[in-house]
């Protein structure tokens, strides 16, 4: 009796068609986005060269014309756009104007790991804590404490984030001195380091990913086990093995001291991001749970004699997970945009800062690359969210094919 496959994804062609259709839509959307971004950036008064050279009265005017020519800015706008687009889609992101002549790809390669590091950890905590909190909040509806938690949650959710971040720096970094105030590494630790910070962060990210994936998937798989005892055992085992493996990996790692330095610097921004972000997840989860809890199948589950925790986790929460996971995917897609403030406040030199600086300095190649990057992330995010929705909600699978 092995396998009655009702999974729509295995049926092939309708889904294939759907993916192709979506892909074409995505490409068109991206082209429009790309062109609009270029136009908008181009339309900003002044340009990068003027900003750099205009205010030095000792410069002959030729210096500016020459600099413009070297960046191809002497050509008519349409030609510039055509040349840039052609290069862009053949993989050449060009060179930065404000940091001429550094390649844009090099700047991005330098910044990206840092943003990924910061936000992957922050998102992990946000969603873990937010989802659990939302679950309990919905379960406690109209009970004591709900209003207080909701108001606290909303306050964190709508708090003026830059200000809140600064207040946290003031409290934890300045007054209490528990954590560094800013930056991502300390010079003294890294002097003569045999390795770059990005390298260490890449290793940190993947080790974290591996552990999270291991624990998450094992726990998920354990929920399919029949006996509660064995289930608990496997779950605990997963944590022990996962965390133990993580510890072992780093305890024996030559880069431990560097990783520690990065980790210490991560504490405050991640905590603040978590505090601000988890509330949003909590509220989504709560709303979604409240809707789910009105469904008949929750009554069915109770009638079956399932414990409240099982009803909550396996039935109500499992279904309420849909919008939450969608929002996670979309949150990943907006990381760079969100990074602008976080990175400015905590002095974390990532993609967000690069984006901000490039727009302010009218460094169009860098800005456009960063824009395109966020645009592609957003497109893929929406696409992934749809697919994920289909995976998590079997009802959608059929409709998305048809």
């Amino acid at each position, binding site marked *: 009796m092995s396998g009655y496959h009702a999974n729509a994804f295995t049926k092939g062609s309708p889904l294939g068609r759907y993916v192709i259709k979506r892909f074409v839509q995505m490409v068109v959307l991206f082209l429009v986005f790309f062109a609009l971004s270029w136009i908008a950036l181009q339309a900003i008064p002044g340009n990068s060269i003027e900003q750099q050279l205009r205010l030095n009265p000792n410069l002959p005017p030729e210096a500016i014309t020459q600099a413009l020519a070297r960046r191809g800015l002497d050509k008519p706008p349409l030609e510039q756009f055509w040349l840039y687009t052609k290069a862009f889609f053949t993989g050449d992101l060009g060179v930065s104007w404000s940091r001429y002549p550094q390649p844009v790809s090099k700047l991005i390669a330098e910044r990206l790991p840092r943003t990924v590091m910061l936000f992957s950890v922050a998102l992990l905590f946000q969603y873990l804590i937010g989802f659990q909190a939302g679950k309990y909040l919905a379960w406690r509806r109209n009970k004591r404490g709900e209003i207080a938690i909701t108001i606290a949650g909303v306050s964190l959710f709508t708090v003026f984030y830059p200000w809140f971040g600064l207040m946290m720096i003031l409290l934890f970094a300045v007054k209490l001195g528990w954590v560094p105030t800013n930056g991502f590494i300390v010079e003294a630790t890294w002097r003569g380091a045999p390795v770059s910070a990005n390298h260490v962060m890449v290793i940190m990210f993947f080790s974290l990913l591996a552990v999270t994936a291991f624990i998450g998937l094992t726990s998920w798989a354990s929920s399919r086990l029949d006996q509660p005892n064995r289930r608990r055992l496997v779950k605990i085992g997963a944590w022990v093995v996962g965390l133990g493996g993580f510890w072992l990996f780093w305890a024996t790692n030559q880069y431990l001291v560097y990783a520690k330095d990065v980790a210490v610097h991560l504490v405050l921004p991640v905590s603040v991001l978590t505090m601000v972000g988890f509330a949003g997840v909590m509220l989504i989860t709560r709303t979604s749970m409240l809707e789910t809890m009105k469904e008949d199948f929750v009554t069915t589950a109770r009638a079956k004699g399932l414990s409240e925790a099982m009803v909550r986790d396996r039935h109500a929460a499992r*279904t309420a997970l849909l919008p939450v996971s969608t929002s996670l995917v979309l949150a990943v897609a907006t990381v760079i945009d969100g990074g602008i403030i976080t990175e400015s406040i905590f002095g974390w030199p990532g993609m967000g800062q690069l984006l901000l600086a490039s727009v302010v300095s009218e460094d169009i190649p860098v800005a456009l690359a960063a824009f395109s990057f966020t645009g592609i992330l957003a497109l893929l995010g929406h696409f992934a969210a749809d697919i994920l929705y289909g995976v998590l909600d079997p009802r959608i699978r059929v409709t998305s094919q048809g």
Partner: protein
Amino acid sequence: MTISNEVSNDAPILDVRNVVMHYRTEKGDVSAIENVSFSLKSGESFGLVGESGCGKTSMAMALLQLQAENATFKGGEIVLNGEDMLKMNPAEVRSHRWSDISMVFQGAMNAWNPVHRVGAQIKEAMDLHIRPQLSHTESRERIASLFEMVGLDPEMMDRYPHEFSGGMRQRAIIAMALSCDPQIIIADEPTTALDVIVQDQILTELKKIQHDLGMSIIYISHDIAVIAEVTDRMGVMYAGKMVETGPTIEVFHNPKHPYAFLLLSSTPSITGPRRKLAPLEGEPPNLLDPPPGCRFHPRCPFVTDQCRTEEPPLAEIGGGHRVACWNWESVPPLSEGLRK
């Protein structure tokens, strides 16, 4: 039409005694179940009939202790195999759910969790209640046989609820209700949302299963015809009270409560005797502030002054037929209809 079922004379497996349940709301207490009693013997089928809002679904939920959060029991007991469920702690209640009393829900679509496979949802109940626990294979085999019993292709167990038609879902619900060999199944409007032909199939299926497995079923429906078709005994509820109870044949053919009388008069019957159809006028009372005396008196064509002040008891009128009406003797035979 009669149902040939051995009705055992043993002590009832379920005995509902004088249950009073209120909903606490902003506007005051809603008296949803007022002093309701009935009992159920092993292998027996019992029907509860009444308009929407009369308390029959509240009663069904109360039997599983699934009443809404704002419900409170003001009295009575629900004795299952000698134990009062109202006195049990939540864990004890849970252990009885499904293993002793299971339920076929109304609106079968929503009763299934859309994100789990049907088989898994059935297995979940079995894992919880069947001891020793079945192995994976054994569970699947059991589900397969249950599916066959209710007339479903066993392969369907690995599908999601939305891939089932309405009738199939209802069959699957029945399979799930049977999965832990309960003593009692509560069928709450089991066929309401289905088309007539499927309705009939499902009812036949249920009857057959009850016959084969010898379990007790409580049918709950607003459709008195359905109740008449499948039950041994029935009760008629009105505004949270049991107004008439007795053997189904007796009540169906010879209703003695004016409400039951009017209800039957307003329902065309294919299977029953020909009769004149009479409309049931007015609306059920507001249970926040139920009328004094007999709750039916504002709508009752046989109303007397006594009805307006004194509450009639549910009194035996012979043959296990009991009626809560001061003037039950004025109620004419069904075939005559209501004279204007």
